[in-house]
């Protein structure tokens, strides 16, 4: 039995009373006059007061769906079928005037990048007040209401914020302003497109709290797009999984994350490190292949080419919409057989990590001069790397993580005194002055491979140059070596003759990793190497890094904001705040506690894929500027355990809590907090 696309297999009530009812929505982009299908029949409902999340890898159509709810699309976008009902009114049929009125009164949007979403040359007050003048209010009344709107989103000193320009506010603050504008009209529907991407976890948590609070107040329906599955889990009541312009599964959030039924959802869930999984347990699952690109002819089941349990039926018959228990459904022939999808086997071998350090930083500081002021970006950092270990470096943006990496690499010269030693011998501060052996020893994998790879060089040239430069190999041997490295990175021979722009994101990052490993480095700095990648590609890259490390005994300095990733990959963790290391210790020790108060707050802020964090510790106020650090303990301004008279005057001591676990804090060890627990 096959249902019509416009029918939902489950009863979610009368679409006319839904806050948002998308029915069999079809949308194309015209490319050179030819239509390319982007949405191929999307159906779902969001009830008033409900939060609905859309997930799926890039290109699945989730953002297009979200924008279509307000009928906003690129100039070449055309809706070719279906309806979008907001409170019973069909958005697709509105005239331009009706649409403007609808946007001004019924629905609003919160965008990915709040800095770009605000007009740089108008004051905040003018931009917020505009939402009220559209509704027909006078100038003064609009300004009064704008002030109220800013108060409502908990902006401290809203009157002074009204008088500022966007560039004078932080990203988190601007996102509050954008939310204030969105809620100005008491909308029936609030669409959020990656609202916290690019914000720090602590700020993200505050923004999400705010959205939750305002939704409860206004009973608005929320449609949330996020690639961070933790955000979806903590925010949404229901979740729809999209793939190639179709929705493949819909369920409540808890059900979807704990008992996914569609093979694609299962693939996604297994690709992220969850439930405290570590690299020593097993590799992450990956999803082979790529999502079909926009406009291509699709097989009967859109996921068939990547599905581990696909059968011949999947290629010949359109999969049925299968209603499961309690209002969830999936689009699959084999919804009963999904248990056959297994995760990779456990890792057999395990290496001991010795205490001997290859590279050691002793009292390394870095001070920048900015507009005549000294800005200490790094203050007396001690850090060492043992062979084959991964040190995870976490902290909010601006905490000095990248400065630390670049100082170690010799991009910035550190202040004197302070030394960086390789096998006990001091290294020159700048890479250009270092001996070949020292240059070879430390290499880097960058966040963005588009920027890290020279786009006019072939992959072969990139690797060959690195081999001849960093090793003594030359001639024919160097070419063989390039092929060898490529093979190890699972790059095929034909990839070698391509240029970076011809490769996908995952392949580009493989080339970057290959380059970093070409000279047999001792330490590789990885600066957020997977943050720009989809989860399935991220899993493959993390697996590659882990397996390279097992075989080559390379050490990693792994910078990331993703706590799940750091927990999976890191043997030790260092936590940075305002240029200082607040805590370092073995990964399990940090996750089990006791921890530094800042670590506690940081861990609790992260939206967890595994459930809801209890007793979240909010971090109030902004991260202090390194140019003007607070006296005493730099964290005392935001610390809930802050001891007056001590923390604000004296620099805290570094105490050893257990083997290789050091915390820089005034609190006695028995009073240090333990991280929050997460439960379903």
């Amino acid at each position: 039995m096959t249902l019509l696309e416009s029918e939902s297999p489950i009863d979610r009530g009368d679409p006319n009373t839904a806050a948002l009812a998308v029915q069999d929505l079809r949308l194309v982009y015209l490319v050179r006059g030819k239509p390319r299908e982007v949405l191929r029949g999307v159906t779902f409902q969001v009830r008033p007061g409900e939060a609905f999340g859309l997930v799926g890898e890039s290109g699945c159509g989730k953002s297009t769906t979200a924008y279509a709810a307000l009928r906003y699309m690129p100039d070449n976008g055309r809706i070719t079928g279906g309806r979008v009902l907001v409170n019973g009114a069909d958005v697709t049929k509105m005239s331009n005037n009706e649409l403007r009125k609808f946007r001004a009164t019924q629905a609003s949007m919160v965008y990915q990048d709040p800095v770009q979403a605000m007009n740089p040359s108008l004051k905040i007050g003018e931009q917020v007040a505009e939402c009220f003048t559209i509704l027909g209010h006078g100038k003064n009344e609009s300004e009064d209401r704008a002030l109220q709107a800013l108060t409502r989103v908990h902006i401290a000193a809203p009157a002074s914020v009204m008088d500022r320009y966007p560039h004078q506010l932080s990203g988190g603050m601007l996102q509050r302003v954008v939310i204030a504008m969105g809620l100005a009209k008491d909308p029936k529907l609030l669409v959020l497109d990656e609202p916290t991407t690019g914000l720090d976890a602590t700020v993200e948590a505050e923004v999400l709290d705010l959205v939750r609070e305002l939704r409860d107040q206004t009973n608005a329906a929320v449609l949330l797009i996020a690639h961070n599955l933790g955000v979806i889990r903590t925010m949404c009541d229901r979740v729809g999984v999209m793939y190639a312009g179709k929705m493949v599964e819909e369920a409540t959030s808890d059900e979807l994350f704990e008992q996914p039924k569609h093979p694609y959802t299962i693939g996604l869930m297994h690709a992220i490190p969850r439930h405290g999984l570590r690299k020593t347990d097993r590799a992450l699952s990956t999803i082979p292949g790529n999502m079909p690109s926009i406009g291509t002819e699709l097989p009967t089941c859109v996921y068939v080419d990547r599905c581990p349990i696909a059968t011949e039926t999947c290629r010949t018959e359109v999969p049925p919409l299968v209603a499961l228990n309690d209002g969830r459904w999936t689009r699959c022939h084999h919804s009963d057989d999904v248990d056959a999808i297994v995760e990779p086997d456990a890792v057999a071998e395990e290496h001991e990590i010795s205490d001997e350090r290859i590279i050691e930083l002793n009292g390394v500081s870095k001070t920048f001069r900015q507009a005549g002021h000294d800005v200490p970006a790094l203050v007396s950092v001690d850090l060492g790397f043992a062979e084959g270990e991964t040190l995870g470096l976490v902290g909010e943006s601006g905490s000095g993580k990248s400065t630390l990496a670049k100082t170690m690499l010799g991009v910035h010269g550190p202040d004197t005194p302070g030394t960086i030693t390789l096998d006990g011998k001091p290294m020159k501060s700048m890479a250009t002055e270092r001996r070949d052996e020292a240059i070879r020893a430390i290499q880097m994998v960058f966040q963005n491979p588009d920027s890290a790879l020279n786009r006019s060089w072939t992959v072969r040239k990139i690797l060959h140059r690195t081999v001849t430069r960093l090793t003594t190999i030359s001639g024919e041997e160097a070419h063989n070596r390039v092929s060898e490295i490529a093979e190890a990175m699972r790059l095929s021979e034909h990839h070698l003759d391509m240029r970076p722009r011809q490769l996908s994101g995952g392949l580009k990052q493989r080339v970057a990793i290959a380059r970093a490993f070409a000279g047999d480095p001792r330490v590789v700095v990885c600066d957020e190497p997977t943050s720009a990648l989809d989860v399935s590609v991220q899993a493959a890259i993390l697996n590659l890094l882990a397996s390279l490390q097992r075989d080559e005994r390379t050490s990693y300095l792994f910078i990331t904001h993703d706590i799940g990733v750091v927990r999976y990959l890191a043997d030790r963790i260092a936590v940075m705040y305002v240029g200082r290391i607040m805590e370092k210790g073995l990964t399990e020790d940090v996750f089990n506690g006791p921890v530094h108060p800042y670590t506690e707050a940081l861990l609790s802020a992260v939206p967890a894929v595994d459930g809801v964090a209890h007793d979240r510790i909010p971090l109030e106020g902004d991260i202090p500027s390194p140019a003007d650090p607070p006296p005493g303990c730099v964290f005392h301004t935001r610390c809930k355990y802050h001891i007056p008279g001590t923390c604000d005057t004296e620099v805290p001591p570094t105490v050893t809590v257990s083997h290789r676990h050091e915390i820089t804090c005034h609190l006695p060890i028995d009073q240090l907090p333990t991280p929050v627990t997460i439960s379903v």
Partner: protein
Amino acid sequence: MSDLVNPGNEVNPANENDDEIEVEEPEAVPVATAPAQDRQTVRKEQRRQLLRDPSFIIGFSIVLLWILCAVFPGLLTTRSPDVGVTLADGTFLARSSPGADAWFGTDGIGRDVFSRVIYGARSVLTTAPVAAALAVAAGAFLGLLMGYFRGWVDEVISRISEAFLSLPVVLLAIMVLVVFGSSNLVIILTVAGLFTPVVARTVRSAVLAEAQLDYVTSAKLRGEPSWFVMSREILPNITNILVVEFTVRVAYAIFTIATLAFLGFTGDALRADWGNDIANTYTLIQAGQWWPTIFPSLAIAALVIGVNLIADSLDKALKS
């Protein structure tokens, strides 16, 4: 290193289809099948786009026509541009308006305007491209230094070029030519020198942007010397900009050299030269003798428009 792989954990490379290429058009050929031609594929796509662009076709045809005139003037006209026209019946054609005897008419001393327009392409098409090429070479060199090293190198060169940028090129050129005379060599060097700061500024900002990218950091981390980073890593990524800049500068050089010729600064005062011919005849327009002026004017206009059409479509194609 080949034992690095841990087959049990990794995805089968045959399945792991990271191969897909980022192409704007889904209809584009899957590149994975023809790896060796990939670069050419990109180039070919750009070339296809150029050849589809009507403004490129028009511009290219115009410029090609003038190049033909400059190289083989004898193919298009049998008359000398320098000697007055005497018809078969012995009549001397002076100040004759356009007609069957002389398509574009003859000037005050009987020279054929059509021949002068054809031969006139020569002088401007030899000087302008050479001047533009020199300016782009020098500007690229300075721009690379400024954008890569920044600091005092940048500061010093910027200050000096700013001084020159504050005056119109024509004025500066006039002063130099008054002092050094107006041979073709001086004209070329002057125009090249005066265009250099502009090119350097454009290249500088492109280099600044490139130097921010991580591949430059990566090269430094390999211990590459500065000259290598500038000439091998950065330069190939800004050649598109240089190509467009060269074409734009050719157009401006024609503009400037024609203006200078109009003002009397020309390598050879007697040789057929559009700017100079206009200068010698434009006062006669009001007396009704428009043809010795208007035809060379249209010639200059056509050539510069042609070059600019090429520059514009090149810019569009290379950016896509």
